[in-house]
């Protein structure tokens, strides 16, 4: 990103020159070691991706801890590729939606629906598609896996970016226009920086979800063909199949280390850096900190090396792709309305045609009565999701409030909660399965908690954030008037954290729906547990290669999630925005 580096670099490179110091300092050494290591690892991993598919058969995944770092690296690179793809998608699609009214009419509803579609359902089609695209190469399977992660990340990032672009402050927009910034300059000087904090936050949320899907998408079985890409997910699948308890434990350890490193080396620095794009004109109280970001800022040589990049960035910013923007004019209503109608008709027509095709496809092998099964199962899964979110809320709201009101504790617990949210819960599933099998408990009930195992933390850390942000004067007022116990919760704390809670619960419930596809069916060696639900329906259909049923299952789940969002979460969101904002 060109605009990022040329900020401090220009001046400090100048300053470094005048001081005439060329010797690297200690920070430089540390930073270089880090950079070099990352470069080597990336090259190694990328080279392996292009191996022929037959290589997979010749060199199957082996449960040898010595190979584990390599597998972890491959998994990480997949993550990384997906995040880059998501960013490119975000910049392109969200910008298009924000700039073109007609594109917006299609893109925004589409993103909204795509957000609700269970990602794991996609795998069936994408594996087939990408394998066909790159026949005989491992790359096809890699692409399918990366695409699965991409679909779990891209939509909310694009949404966030789009919303930022639409809310660019009017005065800054006017400055940019009155100075005649080109669209290119405007994007990098105004729009991208303004959108940065929201985008970084959403990317972080996306990454948390992404780990879950990377694990789920590496070992894929579609109608008899099984592809196992080298990675932590395949390792785990194999460990489960071979009932190797130690190997599962190794996977948990490796995952924890990888996520920890990713957080420390990538996200914390980015969050610390993105802090300067926050739009508030007042200096913030709590600045996010990161040792890597601090390191990068302190290195002298690094800055001198990036100075050419900064120079290049500065030059690129001078490029003009467009003529100067002109004055804003009220569009002549008549012609544009007619065009709008034509466009809408075209979109609706295409939509109807697509729906017709889908129904015709399903109609070939399924009858209307087949729709009842997924619907009934959907209701059961809905019951599970709501019940579990409720249980998780009852547990984590008091805990989160307790923690959030104690800044010292919150500072230590918050990173842990965020780490737990990122940790792919499916790595822990085997432990639960062993417990259920050995105690003979009912899978219909006891498999369910797995669905919120990974997602409940969203509730926790959002509640912590809400309680931390609760204004001191209101707390003092509450204690002056001796509001206690239930009154205190009802009148003071619950309204105070409500907007945060809704955000957390919304994320958690979306994640839980997705998780149901892997959580309602679990196995340990030959033991296979299955709960009655929509997730199990989709998983079974996928394994059997029964495409029509997969489509039907996904459609039903998307319908449930969309309705759930529209009927429950969105009104709550509106309520929170209207009534319970504390600023």
């Amino acid at each position: 990103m060109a605009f990022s580096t040329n900020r401090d670099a220009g001046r400090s490179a100048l300053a470094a020159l005048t001081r005439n110091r060329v010797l690297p300092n200690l920070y430089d050494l540390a930073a270089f070691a880090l950079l070099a290591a990352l470069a080597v690892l990336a090259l190694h991993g990328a080279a392996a991706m292009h191996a022929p598919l037959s290589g997979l058969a010749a060199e199957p995944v082996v449960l040898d801890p010595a190979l584990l770092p390599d597998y972890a690296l491959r998994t990480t690179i997949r993550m990384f590729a997906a995040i880059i793809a998501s960013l490119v998608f975000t910049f392109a699609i969200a910008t298009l939606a924000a700039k073109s009214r007609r594109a917006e009419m299609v893109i925004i509803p589409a993103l909204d629906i795509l957000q609700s579609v269970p990602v794991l359902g996609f795998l069936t089609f994408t594996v087939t598609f990408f394998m066909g695209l790159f026949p005989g190469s491992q790359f096809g399977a890699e692409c399918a896996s990366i695409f699965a992660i991409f679909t779990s990340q891209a939509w909310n990032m694009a949404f966030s970016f789009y919303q930022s672009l639409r809310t660019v402050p009017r005065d800054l927009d006017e400055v940019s226009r009155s100075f005649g910034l080109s669209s290119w300059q405007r994007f990098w000087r105004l729009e991208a920086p303004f959108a940065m904090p929201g985008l970084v936050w959403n990317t972080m949320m996306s990454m948390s979800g992404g780990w879950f899907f990377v694990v789920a998408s590496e070992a894929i079985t579609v109608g008899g063909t099984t592809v196992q890409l080298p990675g932590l997910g395949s390792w785990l699948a194999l460990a489960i199949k071979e009932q190797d308890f130690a190997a599962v434990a190794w996977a948990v350890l490796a995952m924890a280390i990888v996520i920890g490193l990713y957080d420390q080396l990538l996200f914390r620095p980015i969050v610390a850096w993105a802090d300067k794009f926050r739009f508030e004109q007042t200096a913030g109280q709590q600045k996010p900190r990161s040792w890597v970001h601090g390191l990068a800022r302190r290195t002298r040589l690094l800055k001198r090396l990036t100075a050419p990049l900064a120079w290049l960035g500065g030059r690129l910013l001078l490029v003009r792709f467009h003529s100067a923007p002109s004055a804003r004019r009220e569009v002549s209503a008549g012609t544009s309305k007619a065009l709008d109608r034509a466009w809408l008709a075209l979109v609706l027509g295409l939509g109807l045609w697509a729906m017709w095709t889908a129904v015709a496809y399903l109609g070939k092998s399924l009858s209307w009565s087949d729709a009842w099964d997924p619907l009934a199962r959907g209701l059961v899964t809905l019951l599970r999701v709501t019940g579990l979110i409720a249980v998780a809320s009852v547990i984590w709201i008091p805990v989160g409030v307790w923690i959030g009101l104690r800044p010292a504790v919150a500072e230590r617990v918050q990173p842990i909660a965020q780490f737990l949210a990122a940790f792919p819960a499916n790595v822990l599933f085997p432990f639960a399965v062993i417990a259920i099998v050995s105690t003979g408990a009912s899978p219909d009930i006891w498999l369910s908690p797995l669905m919120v195992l990974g997602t409940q933390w969203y509730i926790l850390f959002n509640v912590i954030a809400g309680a931390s942000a609760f204004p001191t004067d209101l707390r003092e007022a509450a204690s002056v008037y001796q509001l206690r116990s239930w009154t205190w919760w009802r009148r003071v704390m619950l309204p105070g954290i409500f907007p945060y809670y809704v955000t957390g619960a919304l994320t958690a419930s979306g994640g839980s729906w997705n998780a149901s596809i892997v959580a309602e069916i679990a196995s340990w060696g030959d033991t296979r547990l299955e709960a009655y639900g929509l997730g199990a329906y989709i998983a079974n259909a996928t394994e059997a290669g029964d495409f029509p049923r997969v489509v039907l299952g996904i459609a039903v789940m998307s319908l449930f999630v969309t309705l759930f969002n529209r009927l429950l979460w969105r009104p709550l969101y509106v309520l929170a925005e209207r009534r319970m904002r504390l600023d």
Partner: protein
Amino acid sequence: MTEIVVTRDFKADKAPPLVSASQVCQSYDKGTAGSLVVLDKVDVDLHSGEIVGLLGRSGSGKSTLLRAIAGLIQPSGGSVTFEGRVVTGPTSGVAVVFQSFALFPWLTVLENVELGLEAQGVAPAERRKRALAAIDLIGLDGFESAYPKELSGGMRQRVGLARALVVHPKVLLMDEPFSALDVLTAETLRTDLLDLWCEGRMPIEAILMVTHNIEEAVLMCDRILIFGSNPGRVIAELRVELPQPRNRLDPAFRALVEDIYARMTAKAGAPARDGFFPGTGIAMALPRVSTNLMAGLIETIAAEPYRGEADLPPLAAELHLEIDDLFPVAETLQLLRFADLEGGDIRLTAAGLRFADSDVDGRKRLFAQQLATYVPLAAHVRRVLDERSSHKAPARRFRDELEDHMSEDYAATTLKAVTNWARYGEYFAYDEDADLFTLDNPS
């Protein structure tokens, strides 16, 4: 430090104007109810060597005119020319300073100042040289690497000024540049700017500034155009011949301020007493004025030293109210017949004096009475509530009714204003959750 070469010519008005706006109209489509006219055939010329002030209340279209001159918006009628060429978009000869400073929080002071040059494709070395010169000129040395959020309001506006000057514009447009600053800071900045202007150290030929502060206009401008509202138009043009630096206590200065107050409170030929607000009957667009402010103003005018009649300029000074704050209150009092506005004076009516003497309940009763008699919309809502057996009516209904006559924003503001007045007078009640008007006040 680099000197900026100045080429300003003080030719007489006979020379062709630098900027000329002629017959500029701006209206917004309101759908079925026609259009809302913000500017109505406004003519403004800006000559080399002068500072011109556009003085008026908010909503008088003066900022819209400034944006049309800057090329930020295309007026719906009339034309703007700059150096004889028609303005169709932002031009490099015109720079704008904003009320909100409009600094990029992610860019340092230096980078903010360089922005306009970057847009012009100026090479980095040259950019830095010119930016440093501008920073030096405007008194920002030492702050080059600071981010805007680290600066005080006054320093931020200095950055805004430096950023505008660095592109060497011929015309500087300023949109209420000092109104977001505290009194002292604003005064310092005005003086500094005037000094730079009078000494000819800024590379600009003319300044056009928008303000709602009468004293500021008299202090800084060579020519003042007074704007009237509904629709926005020039109602008077004054030439300020006082030499710089001007003294606020100078009797000639005071007389000029007084004169402008009188012109701005003159009833512009409208015989109706409600002439200040656009629209008639229930379709009158009303400002949101708090009942506390109204009561406070009545009390102040009733008490010593005014004893029922006050001159607006000293009153505004004493209460630290700018005309944008004071006028809506005064005019609402006039609408409710608590006071009379005439020739820059405000005089309490019998009802106003009675209000000042009453206790809380008496005031509320009196207020409700005036509301019922003189605010048709309030009376209308009350009538509908009385007619219905449930004594409830959805607010949506009245909002729709208002939107037939005015824009959505105006309708919302008007209804909110009336709701709050009615709540104070316990004339009717409003339940926000249900968006319902009712007759029962919770007791």
